[in-house]
């Protein structure tokens, strides 16, 4: 996994609450057995006029011009600014894969659905929770200024705005550590192999019906 330390990037505002994973990446794209290649289909139904199918070449598909990511001013954005309960719905990791493949490595919102939030960390994406009033201010600033960019520093747990304001954020220690170092948490867990085996032996005696 790619480590996340700092990021300076253009912000794209997704001004809708409860953006669900079906909207982030519609189900027909879940048929792929790969981890990459989902970026062109991110927000497919909102982004294109026609119905997307897996494998389609998206370069000539008709775009919905009023959809935010289709506006030239947000081209190349790497920070997605969102509303409450972002990523609700299914557990599909295709949602963060699509977000990452498109080029976003940070999502800022007042709240996230649990599974989506967790899936982001597994893929080198930093989801940041800020209070709703602060997110409102960022939306306003982003609308007011073309090219609005932020600098995110995971080490310092801070976001710096173009006029130098520093906004702090919380993130739990374990996830921060893994993300900063790009750690594969399977490898970390396997270091606990003895503890797992000891647990299994104890549990087998306690609960023989579990088939351990």
């Amino acid at each position, binding site marked *: 996994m790619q480590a996340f330390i700092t990021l300076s990037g253009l912000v794209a505002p997704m001004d809708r609450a409860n953006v669900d994973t079906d909207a982030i990446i519609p189900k027909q794209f879940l048929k792929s057995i*790969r*981890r990459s290649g989902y970026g062109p289909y991110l927000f497919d139904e909102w982004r294109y006029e026609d119905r997307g199918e897996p494998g389609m070449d998206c370069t000539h598909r008709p775009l919905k011009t009023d959809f935010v990511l289709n506006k030239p001013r947000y081209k190349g954005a790497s920070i997605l600014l969102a509303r409450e309960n972002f990523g609700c719905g299914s*557990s599909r990791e295709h949602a963060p894969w699509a977000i990452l493949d498109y080029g976003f490595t940070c999502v800022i919102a007042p709240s996230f*659905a649990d599974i989506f939030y967790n899936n982001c960390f597994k893929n080198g994406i930093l989801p940041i929770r800020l209070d709703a009033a602060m997110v409102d201010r960022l939306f306003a600033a982003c609308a007011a200024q073309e090219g609005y960019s932020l600098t995110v520093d995971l080490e310092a747990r801070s976001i710096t705005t173009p006029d130098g304001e520093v906004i702090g954020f919380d993130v739990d220690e374990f996830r921060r550590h893994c993300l900063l170092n790009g750690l594969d948490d399977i490898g970390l867990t396997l270091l606990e192999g003895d503890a797992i085996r000891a647990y299994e032996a104890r549990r087998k005696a306690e609960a023989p019906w*579990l*088939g351990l």
Partner: protein
Amino acid sequence: MGRALFDKVWDQHVVKANEDGSTLLYIDRHLVHEVTSPQAFEGLRLTHRKPWRASAAVATPDHNVPTTDRAKGITDPISRIQVEALDENCREFGITEFGMNDVRQGVVHVMGPEQGLTLPGMTVVCGDSHTSTHGAFACIAMGIGTSEVEHVLATQCLIQQKPRRMRITVEGALPAGITGKDVALYIIGLIGTAGGTGYAIEFAGPAIRQLSMEGRMSLCNMAIEAGARCGMVAADDTTIDYVKGRPYSPTGEDWDKAVAAWRELHSDSDAVFDKEMVLQASDIAPQVSWGTSPEMVLPVSASVPHLAEARDAVQRECWERALLYMGLSEGEVISEIAVDKVFIGSCTNGRIEDFRAAASVVKGKKLAANVKLAMAVPGSGLVKQQAEAEGLDVIFREAGFEWREPGCSMCLAMNADRLEPGERCASTSNRNFEGRQGMGGRTHLVSPAMAAAAAIAGHFVDIRDWS
């Protein structure tokens, strides 16, 4: 101080509590399906890792399988590759799979409990958000992403942050015609789709105990739609009776030991919760969702809300968008909304009790002229077999329903079963998101009996008045 059910099950599964507050949690059962697993198996292959305990995992294809004639195989080549990849991965890694033509195949969350793979007090995971279903068995059951599917395959553990505990108690007795599905929708309508975020919810009280296991599964299935990490119901005689005699259930001495342990799977009387809510069963009417989020739900007797009733600008905008997408106007009477299609099935309502309830509504009647298609899709091959043994398939067919092969089907429309743009569907599934049942499709979530009644009447009706 007494412990909550969640804490009892959690504590039994702690392999290691880390200093940073995270916990290495042991996973007893891992259910696998074709959509969220291929990249996980690929990860194992690339890192030369083996499953830690292959016997903990059981797989079945469900999302992509056709619900029509299986003898023809899967015509969509991309779907076929995904299902074949599951077969190959299970073979290579030594995982039991109930393949597409096995009678035990079905939606994972129907198949698991039916086989006795879900036992009380277990930790159960699956790369699917509706894994919360298994909480009906006093399990900690959580949906996970593909990276975690790989993590569980490789280590049999998950790294978890302990959620907070919420208890929702439903007092009194459920009125006739009110199902677990209505209870779920009613609760989501009250607390919203983020109301349970960060919580494990225990559903308790006399009205919950009165529910069958099928009803409890429908309820816990939708805990995820309230944003909860998981939903749970304490184990009791209903739970134990359901589990008894299933293929993977313990027998003999192990059964007795298990039952003794399962009797402890309830919250102590003095357990403390981070949040408590008490509801009255008598307040719950048959529910119909009107919008594009499960929280946009109302009693069948109500009318679509006016935008002026929204609590703030964000909600107002969501409602406005939902009305537009759903092709509804403010104040429209729900019972006058006409439907084009009807879908009975899914991991929420694809069990035998659901088909019995729906069949009793349609028996001897015919689909309304405006209903283009009504589908009854059993949750598993065994549900289908049981329903046919009871003659339910004949009742559905005579009423004009299509009686299909088991799978997820039009719950998410990954196979050929889908709505066309603008079509309106009474559906027993769990999500009414934009495009969920097909691009431009309009979904109304209801119970099986309500869906069946809508198929016959051609519009929503109050099942309490059905004769």
